[in-house]
């Protein structure tokens, strides 16, 4: 493990308490809603914010340890940061921005400029080297900020919402560049984002952060298939339930019952994909083991599918085709029967 951080920070109403480990060469993404403490966590690892309690260790070197009373100031940490708002120095040329870190690390002026030029060339910004940051587009500025952070050869690279400030058109392009350069960077990489697409595209491992705590850690596939929080489930677009499993039935606190194929016993999560929910106008009889009487509380047409929010003992979202929705004559507030095959429900221990 190259980065091991176990820290707690209090900042306003936020109580951040996380325990993270990121391996050599790994790209970890902290995914969480706004206000979950993502940026606070990055600032704490970078040393920009003192931690309340805990320790941060990078490559076996203690950066901060409240028990020992040691704390390295940010300028002494081998950590590079790419800020969401880029924070390029407006009074320096793009080239001098990239050369800044090299100069502070003791490089001579000529060497620093030459190395900065190499970095700008690598990111395709050679023509803009002499310009001011204000002349750059959002995407170019983001890449310049990346070049500035990478130029000092940090052991750990932190990226704070690297694509959030960009418009949709440039986002895909910058994301591609980012993937390319993050791959070629040898150290450890930790990025925070609230965009699942960004997290899944860039990271080997996701850490889901909610209200200051890591609620799930795993590969993007893990999180996609077995989300462990309402937030994560919403991100990947599935229905998530939590209840007690007994004899192939998950009993929800709301009183609802979900029949599953082999769920074990005890507290479990159950995931139902909206597409595996079938809707009927009358009480269907036959194979599906789960039949719930529900009310269509909201009907949203989204392109070629219709999302139906169902209320009842098992509240869930169903996704049907517009044709099916027409046939069912779905109307908000109207009654409907929902069915799900037991084999379509994925259950796993909570």
């Amino acid at each position: 493990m190259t980065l091991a951080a176990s820290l707690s920070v209090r900042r306003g109403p936020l109580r951040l308490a996380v325990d993270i480990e990121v391996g050599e060469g790994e790209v970890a993404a902290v995914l969480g809603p706004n206000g979950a403490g993502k940026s606070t966590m990055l600032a704490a690892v970078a040393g920009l914010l003192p931690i309340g309690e805990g320790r941060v260790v990078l490559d076996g070197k203690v950066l901060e340890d409240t028990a020992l009373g040691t704390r390295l100031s940010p300028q002494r940490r081998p950590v590079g940061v790419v800020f969401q708002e880029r924070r390029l120095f407006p009074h320096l040329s793009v080239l001098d921005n990239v050369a800044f870190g090299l100069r502070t690390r003791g490089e001579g002026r000529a060497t620093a400029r030459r190395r900065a030029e190499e970095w700008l060339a690598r990111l395709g910004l050679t023509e803009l080297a002499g310009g001011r940051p204000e002349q750059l587009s959002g995407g170019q500025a983001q890449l310049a900020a990346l070049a500035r952070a990478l130029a000092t050869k940090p052991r750990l690279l932190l990226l704070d919402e690297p694509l959030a400030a960009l418009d949709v058109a440039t986002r895909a392009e910058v994301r591609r560049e980012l993937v390319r350069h993050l791959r070629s960077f040898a150290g450890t990489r930790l990025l925070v984002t609230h965009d699942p697409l960004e997290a899944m595209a860039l990271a080997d491992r996701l850490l889901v952060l909610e209200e200051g705590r890591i609620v799930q850690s795993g590969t993007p596939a893990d999180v996609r298939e077995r989300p462990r929080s309402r937030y994560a489930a919403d991100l990947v677009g599935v229905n998530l339930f939590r209840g007690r499993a007994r004899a192939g039935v998950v009993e929800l606190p709301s009183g609802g019952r979900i029949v599953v194929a082999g769920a074990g016993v005890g507290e479990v999560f159950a995931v139902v994909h909206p597409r595996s929910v079938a809707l009927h106008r009358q009480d269907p009889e036959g194979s599906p083991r789960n039949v719930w009487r529900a009310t269509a509380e909201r009907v949203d047409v989204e392109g070629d599918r219709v999302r139906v929010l169902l209320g009842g003992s098992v509240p869930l979202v169903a996704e049907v085709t517009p044709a099916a929705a027409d046939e069912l004559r779905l109307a908000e507030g109207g009654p409907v029967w929902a069915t799900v095959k037991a084999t379509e429900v994925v259950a796993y221990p909570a």
Partner: protein
Amino acid sequence: MRERVPVWLVVPVVIGLVFLLAPVVALVQRAPWSELGHELASGPVRTALRLSLVTSLAATVLAMVLGVPLAWVLARSEWRLLRLVRAVTLLPLVLPPVVGGVALLLALGSRGLIGQWLDRTFGLTLPFTTAGAVVAELFVALPFAVVTVEAGLRAVDRRLEEAAATLGAGPWRRFWRVSMPLAAPSLAAGAALCGARALGEFGATITFAGNLPGRTQTLPLAVYLELQTRPEVAVLLSLVLLTVSVVVLVALRGRWVGLGRP
């Protein structure tokens, strides 16, 4: 929405403008333009002019050396006694300059609080010397530097300093490579205001440094003196000071707090 000036405001506004402008117009109109070159080249005027430039420049440099750190502390520190520091730095701004001069005499005079020690240890005497004139100007001009630079430092984006720290820059480098360049316009404004105030200083200078031609008789003192004997020279010297003021005003273009939009 642009508000129309109410009619009843027009009268006081016009009176106010005339009141402010009339003396300047009179000065320009009464100036002995034909003798301008001749008088400026004459000995006493040149001496006063040179002395004024030297002392106000020295006072400005010192004010920046002392003022920038003070401004920094005021802008950044969370010290409990900060309000006291602020009050102390602003005091000369509201203190009558003559009182300042008297206070300086009591502090830095040869028998003063600090002056005694300066005299004994370094053989340094400030009152009635050119250095004393610089000290008097520094005393009244320093708040201008502090106030202006403080406002500039407050406007510096702290997040850029954080970014510099993550790039390995310690406090010293952050200060010189990031904060100071970003605050450059306010440093220039502070220096200009400070210089203008130092150049015009009268009360504290005459009280603390006296009125010795060639040593402590700066332009404002010369103006006052010449007015008794040769009014046309006083007008001429006033014109010089007026020009400096206008130049400073134009150079600042409303950058100073309170001047509002350019």
